[in-house]
């Protein structure tokens, strides 16, 4: 009999504690993000759509080494074709990325020797056809200002990690 009373008292106290813990939550601001109107604040290390940085004068940073092509786990997702100019330097003719098949692993950006290929914060990539998800060089290249901004952001990240 005494045991039942003690157990009952314990149970009631525990339930009340639970109830008040839940009630405390009512005074918190909601976590919900009303997505289309408000966007989440993302870290610069976020793995979004791939993009190519350019120099301040608008010329390519990419040297056409094709490392990204080789390291990509999805096969022929990145396609780069180059030719040599009169100074025996590689010039990138074609640089396409099929984002529809990309798994956003980030290997290509890790391996890029000049940090030309980067991952941006862009995640709203839905489109109506598979063809429009194949990004060519024109679509991949950022403006010089954006390139500079991403350069700084990624530098900061690298310092933070090390």
């Amino acid at each position, binding site marked *: 009999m005494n045991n039942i009373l003690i157990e009952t008292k314990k149970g009631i106290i525990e*339930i009340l504690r*639970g*109830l008040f*813990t*839940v*009630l405390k*939550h*009512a005074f*918190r*601001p*909601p*976590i*919900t993000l*009303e997505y289309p109107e408000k966007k989440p604040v993302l870290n610069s290390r976020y793995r979004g759509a791939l993009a190519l940085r350019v120099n301040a004068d608008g010329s390519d940073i990419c040297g056409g080494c094709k490392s990204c092509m080789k390291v990509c786990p999805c096969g022929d997702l990145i396609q780069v074709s180059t030719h040599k100019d009169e100074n025996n330097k590689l010039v990138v003719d074609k640089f396409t990325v099929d984002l529809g098949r990309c798994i956003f692993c980030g290997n290509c950006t890790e391996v890029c020797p000049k940090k030309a290929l980067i991952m941006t914060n862009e995640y709203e990539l839905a489109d109506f056809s598979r063809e429009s998800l194949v990004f060519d060089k024109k679509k991949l290249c950022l403006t010089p200002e954006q390139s500079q901004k991403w350069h700084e952001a990624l530098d900061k990240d690298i310092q933070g990690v090390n």
Partner: protein
Amino acid sequence: MYDLYLNIFNKFGLPELLAKLSWPLFPFIGVAVLLIIVVLFLVLMERKILALLTVRKGPNRVGPYGLFQTIADAIKLLIKEDIMSCETNKVLFTLAPVVVFVPTMVIYGLLPYTSNLFAINLAAGLFLILAISSISIIGLVIAGWASNNKYSLLGGMRSAAQAISYEVPFFISAIAVAILAGSMNMNEIVGQQAGGLFSWNMWPSLVGFAVFFICCIAEVNRVPFDLPEAESELVSGYNTEYTGMKFALFFLAEYAAMFIMSVLVVTLFLGGYTSPFGIYISQLFCNLVLHNQMSLNFFVGIEQAFWLIFKTYVVIFAIMWIRATLPRLKADQLMAFSWKFLLPLSLLNLVIVTVYRYFIPG
């Protein structure tokens, strides 16, 4: 009012019998409209409160603050296809939501909303309410059986088992109130509690209040006693096979029953429509400012309705708060809790109340 209605019939040369027959329709229509409005906003309130307690925002797309969300949902349910799988018992399948819904609707007419606003003032009102409230369980069993689905059948059987076990302490703790009031008339039960916070039935039968409240939650099949419609085990139980308006009727009946049970808790234990301060504020106001007996009655009526609705929504909030907190019981725990714990407690409460009434007559 009735004379006015009769006059209209006489003016158009219609038979008096028609007026006599159609007059009771108006309270019925009033109750039906009240019920639908209450339920529509109760569903929204539940979603909003659950969102508040789980740090979310809740529905806020349809209309200002999402006020029209349930109206949109109701329209969606109305225009949905009514599916019946081929081996269901069609008659019983259609009858079940009606059997669940009608008793809840009838009880709305038996509750006293103010000292003047009630449909029927029966001498054994409490008895009738308790009797009718257990009819809707039959509807759940019919729904489970007619669906030709093992999960529905399990849900129906569970609801029957649960209702039978929880009705016993439920009724015994309600009898304690009848002893305290010396009557089963709902208005007299409320009238006996007039005189402020400390003359409520809640204090002499505090144990009974707790038992009654727990049994109310079990009767309307809500968390933590929602075994008949356990989503994760029974695929929402007896209403698995239901679509469209039939499903909406079950939904409507559930929330309507929750409202009724809250009103019942308030009426039996929390002083019903009486003011918690002992005197009505409007009475004070009228005596000091207006000096008008006619307006006094009017304002007191409004205040009584306000207190009833206020207390009811506090109780409903408590039920929703419990839903946001507690997990579901197991079937054996549910039965053991009722038979081994609530039943002895309610009997103990009956003894306490009887002794209390013997030494302190009301």
